């Protein structure tokens, strides 16, 4: 089984290096094919491991020693257990599909090989992140995915906005990673180890305050990666990257790393329910907050990005309330339909020559039948209609909120479910139904390559049937996660809840259709309203960050540059340099090339050395007296 583990882990790395070799050369189809097949190998190995884990085994290997100094011992250890194998399956499935899809999507791009190199490197980092058996390895993977995310968001580096978005994402994650690093240090100080199992064994014996600090700092890291409020702005801007990147990194895998961390650290968060409640509340808030911003947005990819944000909020609600398996299940289901949605959006973008405004589309279902079906399926799954994947996972989260008596969170999530349905179908209606507005703008849409659609179809299948795995999945994961089943005691209440949710969501869908199917043009009246302005400007949060953080920071930096750096630091350095320079200038006359004066200087040097020798000889001989005098001075 170790062999499969290594294949699953390292074949993406091999792919990254292979494509990297051709990084600077023009497009070769070879890199795409080789990388996709390597990813497929990784997927197959993960599937084999999944079968093995389903039989009740786990694999734990220690590849090599990494650091061993004193009490610190950190190996390159990898573990395949019920949690990590779930993540591995999600990562390898989605990334294999995205790789194949990218062969078509990046067809005309100059950086084809470079793209595949980055993409495979990302998958490798993500695998390290989920498979590591200690916090240090997790952190390496964490930084690795951050780096690859930066590379890929800024993939079209000639676009200034893309580089700006890449830097924003990277810097925001850096702020969060500092918190995460502090959390890891705290874990090490208090437990003396970074291995998950050993550290979590010690944790119940620690006092609550320490645990809360560890919990807070680790969660800060999770907030950055999973783009939770107030570090959420980078995710929407990250949509500047190529769409397959958005599908893989900013929907399916990397942004869920935060959820994975909380799930992984479940023994820790179980001991501090206050923190859990905070996580759940924040999750619920973000779910609604992000969904509201998606309502009015006019950028197809941003809408889906806000939807991702909102779904991440759902996951944190489940994780915060102790339903870790539910969080992980929603993570998995969400990865499938969200990646599908993004890839569909990519098709639309290609068809519309990179146009992102759904107001300029409409009626595309005639030209793009396949994409239309796939995206509709994904949206239905996202909205949580029975019997698609979203229904099972999202309904479970709602139940969790209800059963644990957190009615506020429950109602917030319920409303958000309606909002989700609304904005998803607003998008579908605007893109695929109604008049063919794109003709006014002179677009000539065409369907994507067939193999791209075929590559997407497994995701569609998974988005439809993922719900049926729920029981198997539950049996598997609860071997290491808390086995909390959520059942509403009275059957009638349960039916009412499920049906009520379904009807509410249906209504939202119909309302969206009714409003946007016969969309004529922009509603000028509506756009003048305050609530629209707030939502379209993302609650003015990016503006406030700019005004209250970036600008003061910049001014402070200018002050430090002008006052401290130039006048203190630079001046000191210059002073030393000038002193040495002047000393050289003044003493160069000694080197006048005249042998006689050299002889004279030689004698001067001899005298100096001799006097030093005499002084030291004296000092040694009268050492006792000198020290007596010195101590007398001191006293």
């Amino acid at each position: 089984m170790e062999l499969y583990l290594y294949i699953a882990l390292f074949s993406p790395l091999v792919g990254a290096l292979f494509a990297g070799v051709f990084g600077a050369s023009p497009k070769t189809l070879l890199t795409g094919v080789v990388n996709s097949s390597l990813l497929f190998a990784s997927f197959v190995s993960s599937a084999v491991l999944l079968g093995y884990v389903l039989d009740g085994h786990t694999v734990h290997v220690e590849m090599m020693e990494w650091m061993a100094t004193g009490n610190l011992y950190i190996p390159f250890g990898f573990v395949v257990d019920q949690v990590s194998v779930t993540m591995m399956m999600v990562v390898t499935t989605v990334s294999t599909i995205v790789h194949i899809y990218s062969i078509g999507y990046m067809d005309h791009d100059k950086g084809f090989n470079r793209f595949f190199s980055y993409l495979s490197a990302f998958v490798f980092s993500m695998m390290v992140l989920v498979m590591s058996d200690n916090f240090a390895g997790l952190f390496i993977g964490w930084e690795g995915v951050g780096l690859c995310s930066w590379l890929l968001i800024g993939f079209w580096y000639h676009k200034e906005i893309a580089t700006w978005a890449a830097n924003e994402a990277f810097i925001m994650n850096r702020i969060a990673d500092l918190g995460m690093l502090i959390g890891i240090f705290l874990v090490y100080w208090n437990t003396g180890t970074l291995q998950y199992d050993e550290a979590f064994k010690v944790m119940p014996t620690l006092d609550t305050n320490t645990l809360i600090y560890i919990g807070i700092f680790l969660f800060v890291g999770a907030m950055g990666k999973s783009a939770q409020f107030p570090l959420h702005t980078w995710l929407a801007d990250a949509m500047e990257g190529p769409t397959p990147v958005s599908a893989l990194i900013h929907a399916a895998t990397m942004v869920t790393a935060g959820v994975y961390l909380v799930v992984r650290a479940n023994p820790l968060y179980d001991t501090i329910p206050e923190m859990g409640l905070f996580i759940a509340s924040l999750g619920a808030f973000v779910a609604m907050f992000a969904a509201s911003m998606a309502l009015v947005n006019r950028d197809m990819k941003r809408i889906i990005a806000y939807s991702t944000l909102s779904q991440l909020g759902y996951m944190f609600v489940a994780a915060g309330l102790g339903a870790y398996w539910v969080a992980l299940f929603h993570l998995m289901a969400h990865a499938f339909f969200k990646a599908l949605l993004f890839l569909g959006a990519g098709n639309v973008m290609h068809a519309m020559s990179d146009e992102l405004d759904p107001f300029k589309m409409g009626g595309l279902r005639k030209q793009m039948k396949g994409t239309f079906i796939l995206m509709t399926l994904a949206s239905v799954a996202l909205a949580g209609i029975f019997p698609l994947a979203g229904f099972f996972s999202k309904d479970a989260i709602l139940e969790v909120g209800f059963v644990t008596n957190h009615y506020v969170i429950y109602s917030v999530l319920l409303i958000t479910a309606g909002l989700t349905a609304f904005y998803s179908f607003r998008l579908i209606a605007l893109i695929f139904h109604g008049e063919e507005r794109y003709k006014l703008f002179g677009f000539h849409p065409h369907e994507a390559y067939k193999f791209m659609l075929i590559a997407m179809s497994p995701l569609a299948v998974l988005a439809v049937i993922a719900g049926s795995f729920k029981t198997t999945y539950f049996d598997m994961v609860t071997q290491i996660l808390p086995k909390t089943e959520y059942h509403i005691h009275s059957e009638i209440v349960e039916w009412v809840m499920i049906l009520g949710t379904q009807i509410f969501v249906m209504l939202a869908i119909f309302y969206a259709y009714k409003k946007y199917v016969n969309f004529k043009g922009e509603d000028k009246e509506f756009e003048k309203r305050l609530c629209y302005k707030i939502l379209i400007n993302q609650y003015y949060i990016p503006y406030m960050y700019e005004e209250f953080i970036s600008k003061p920071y910049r001014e402070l930096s200018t002050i430090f540059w002008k006052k401290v750096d130039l006048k203190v630091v630079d001046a000191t350095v210059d002073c030393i340099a000038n002193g040495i320079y002047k000393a050289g200038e003044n003493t160069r006359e000694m080197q006048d090339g005249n042998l006689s004066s050299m002889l004279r200087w030689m004698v001067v040097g001899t005298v100096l050395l001799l006097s030093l020798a005499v002084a030291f000889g004296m000092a040694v001989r009268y050492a006792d007296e000198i020290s007596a005098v010195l101590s007398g001075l001191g006293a």
Partner: protein
Amino acid sequence: MFEAIAFYLFAILTAVMFYITVTTKQALFALTALAAGMIFISAFFFILGADFLGVVQIIVYTGAVMALYAFGMMFFDTTRELKEKNGSSLITAGLSILSAVFVVLIFVAPIVSTKVQVTAAAIEGATNSQSVGMVLFTKYLVPFELAAVMLLVAMIAGIVLAGKKMDRSLTLMGEEEIMLAEEARRKVLL
């Protein structure tokens, strides 16, 4: 009493001779004064009972070294007055006196402070030359032989340096000159 008179007499004579050597403008004067100083120095050796050393001093310095210098002087045509530009003699004098004082301080300090161990005592009842010979051919045999080799090397070096063809320097000659010289050499060989 006699020793004291001899010491002071020769001390003054030596110092004056050497002073003339380093200050005079006539090269011939300097040479003569130096030779005289050397002979006076040997007087100290005789007073100190180092007869053999005194003889060596007279033979080597006054005999060989001075003769060499005399030849050198004839060669360099330095019999006319020397033209030298001198810097501040006060500084030079001060420096030389200072360094000499320091040297003495350093070498005398351990002698005065600690008991010196005699490593090669003079043999009872033997003359100076006999005991010098005993020590030189036992304890200092290797340095003595090395000194002999060094003298041989120096002799050969002197002969080679002063010989013919040494007036040309390949480093100072241009590329063409070297080629010409090389060709001339080849012609001679043929």
